[in-house]
């Protein structure tokens, strides 16, 4: 049995879909953030897989993933800072209750 | 640039605006307003005299005092000015009404802001009439429209927010069509490979707009300006807007701003696209012909003075557009005379209505009566205005209407004899019927409002006109009578403008 690209892509796709499911159903902001990380990772895997299988002599996919990881880190840090701040203000982190700034 | 006299029609209002900034009390504001409007009046009189003098030397250029200064080169937008007899007539009308309007708003609340917007409005109006560049024309048009919203919304009465919004939105809707039309004209302004231009004179000279495009652009521009000219069925902003507007704004709006519509229809739609005007005029003839009788009939049953007058304006302005569409120099002359006449007398009407309303606090004619015994001066003025409106000889309405009817009848007969149908003839006769209906609603108002016993005893204590009100009304009455008694002066001024150019294309 040969492990072709699809063997990696399908689990990544499932992971992505889990991320989608989580993002649109969960109301807890941290849970949503976790779902977001899942999607991000799924995409990262795709980059790497395509880089490895199609253009092994280049490293664009890898570097993209590298930067994506860095940015994900930054984003998470900031998001969590915001979440904590919201928690202080609203005493919960349910997205539905965050309508103070609406309209 | 400042050597051109016409520029000062825009400069003077701008100076007035600046002067207004330094005013500290109402007296200074009045002084600025009156000085400025006198200056404008003098300026238009001077331009008229100069114009006549130059014409007397045999100059047959389509426009005089022309000048053009580049404003935005990549799109060939220029600040181009120039006047002919029609523009001068309109400039005189505007300056008279601005003058009278200043006196009519002598005791307005928040005078500084009010005059600020009023003067900005007149800047737009004057700019519009002196422009010969489609783009600057459009710009000034918008400048004239926008202050209206604030003037009605802030200083108005009744459902002022609704009316202001309605008026602004409908006119803006019209200018959307207009913009489309103007851009279309611009892109076909020059023959293949030529330099595109916004300049009306050049466009008319090239006459390069393809016929197919004309048939699209003509309705666009005509409807665009027609909305402001209260063409059926786009007139409904007029009753509400006028009913809510403060006196001076009603005067200026009905007196001058609605003339922008007629002027634009002539200057842009017909002047630049005569072919389509000939082909498509029947549609608009029907609409404007309907306006004429429709407005008059509606005015017959209204009880609010301003509504009555607004519908009467629909009727009279309909006659303006109607006559323009006759594509015949007599009728067109009549149309411009009607613009002058209607502008003056409707301003007079609105001034009087404002003065009466300011005293009785009602405009419902069923709530008033016998004003002749209480305020004889205002009542007599109202009768005179009414007589002008129903076309009494010796006042302006008569000459304008007669010129229109003679011209339209001529056009209609020519069409009928040529076997091209009797549409024009039929609608001319329908339009003639308006003189009877006008008499009905004018006399109905006069009978109910001024004559008869005093309806409300509280009204007995009311006072007659103050000196500034007298001044404002006398100015307008004198002008109405001047046109009515010496029509040939205005007739010649306007008539010489209808150069054979437009009629050549029409084959007339």
């Amino acid at each position, binding site marked *: *049995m*040969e*492990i*072709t*690209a*699809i*063997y*990696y*892509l*399908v*689990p*990544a*796709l*499932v992971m*992505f*879909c*889990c991320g*989608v*499911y*989580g993002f*649109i*159903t*969960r*109301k*807890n902001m*941290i*849970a949503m953030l*976790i779902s977001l*990380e*899942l999607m991000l*990772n799924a995409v990262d*895997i795709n980059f*790497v*897989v395509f880089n*490895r*299988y*199609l253009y*092994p002599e*280049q*490293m*664009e996919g*890898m*570097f993209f993933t*590298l*930067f994506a*990881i*860095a*940015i*994900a*880190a930054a*984003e*998470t*840090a*900031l998001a*969590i*800072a915001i979440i*904590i701040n919201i*928690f*202080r203000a609203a005493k919960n982190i*349910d997205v539905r209750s965050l309508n103070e700034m609406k309209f | 640039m400042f050597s051109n006299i016409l520029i000062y029609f825009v400069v003077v209002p701008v100076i007035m605006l600046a002067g207004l900034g330094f005013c500290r009390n109402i007296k200074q504001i009045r002084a600025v307003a009156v000085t400025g409007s006198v200056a404008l009046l003098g300026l238009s009189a001077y331009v008229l005299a100069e114009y006549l003098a130059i014409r007397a030397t045999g100059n047959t250029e389509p426009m005089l005092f022309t000048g053009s200064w580049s404003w935005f080169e990549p799109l060939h937008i220029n600040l181009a000015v120039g006047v002919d007899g029609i523009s001068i007539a309109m400039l005189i009308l505007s300056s008279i009404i601005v003058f009278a309007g200043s006196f009519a708003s002598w005791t307005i609340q928040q005078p500084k802001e009010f005059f600020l917007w009023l003067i900005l409005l007149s800047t737009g109006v004057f700019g519009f009439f002196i422009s010969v560049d489609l783009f600057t024309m459009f710009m000034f048009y918008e400048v004239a429209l926008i202050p209206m919203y604030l003037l009605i919304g802030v200083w108005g009465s009744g459902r002022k927010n609704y009316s202001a919004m309605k008026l602004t939105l409908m006119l803006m809707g019209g200018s959307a069509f207009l913009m489309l039309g103007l851009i279309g004209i611009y892109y076909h302004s020059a023959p293949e490979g030529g330099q595109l231009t916004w300049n009306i004179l050049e466009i008319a000279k090239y006459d390069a707009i393809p016929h197919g495009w004309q048939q699209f652009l003509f309705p666009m521009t005509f409807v665009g300006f027609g909305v402001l000219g209260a063409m059926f069925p786009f007139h409904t902003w007029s009753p509400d807007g006028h009913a809510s507007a403060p006196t001076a704004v009603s005067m200026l709006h009905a007196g001058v701003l609605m003339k922008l519509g007629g002027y634009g229809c002539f200057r842009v739609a017909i002047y630049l696209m005569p072919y389509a005007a000939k082909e498509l005029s029947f549609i608009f003839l029907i609409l404007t012909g309907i306006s004429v009788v429709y407005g008059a009939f509606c005015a017959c049953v209204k009880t609010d003075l301003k509504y009555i007058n607004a519908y009467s304006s629909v009727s009279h302005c309909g006659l303006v557009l109607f006559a323009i569409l006759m594509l015949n120099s007599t009728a067109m002359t009549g149309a411009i005379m009607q613009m002058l006449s209607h502008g003056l007398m409707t301003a007079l009407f609105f001034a009087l209505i404002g003065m009466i309303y300011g005293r009785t606090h009602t405009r419902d004619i069923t709530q008033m009566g016998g004003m002749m015994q209480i305020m004889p001066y205002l009542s007599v003025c109202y009768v005179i205005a009414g007589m002008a409106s129903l076309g009494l000889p010796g006042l302006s309405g008569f000459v304008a209407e007669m010129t229109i009817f003679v011209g339209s009848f001529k056009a209609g007969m020519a069409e009928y004899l040529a076997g091209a149908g009797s549409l024009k003839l039929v609608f001319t006769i329908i339009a003639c019927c308006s003189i009877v209906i006008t008499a009905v609603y004018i006399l109905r108002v006069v009978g109910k409002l001024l004559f008869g016993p005093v309806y409300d005893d509280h009204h007995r204590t009311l006072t007659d006109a103050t000196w500034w009100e007298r001044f404002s009304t006398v100015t307008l009455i004198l002008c109405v009578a001047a046109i009515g008694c010496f029509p040939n002066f205005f007739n010649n001024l306007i008539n010489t403008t209808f150069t054979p150019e437009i009629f050549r294309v029409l084959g007339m």
Partner: protein
Amino acid sequence: MESVGSIILYFIVALSMIVFSVMAVTTRKILRAATYLLFTLFAAAVVYFMLDYEFLGAVQIAVYAGGIVVLFVFAILLTSKPGDNTERLTSKSRFLGGLAAVATLALAGYALVSRCSMAFASKPVMEAPDMQSVGEALLGSGHGEYLLPFEAVSVLLLACIIGGVVVARKR
């Protein structure tokens, strides 16, 4: 042809990736969700190793598993008491969300399987990129080199640090 060991490893990794990601989004205990995420991230790191990108796998473990998940855990502990359950999802939202996820899966899977011949490419032989080449690519400014993004990311991270401090600072 892969070695049996690597096939077995693959299946373990793929299975854990799928299972843990499903569990991460379905569990009601938020701390467990973070833990499952951690496992998923590990699985992804293993994938990177399997594809010979050791540096990337290391970064994944260090930054994600070591950094981000720790941040998550801190945040969770700060915002909820232990034993807190997140609210129960309504069956409607669960159904709709599941439907959307499955639809996405179906559509993308269909596209992948039937329309994407690249997906069936076999793995070519490749030298695992050594640290030097990675470093040079990261800090070079020529073609296929990433100094500018690198600097951009560094500024971003700085901004992020400041932002995080400012936002989370107690007023």
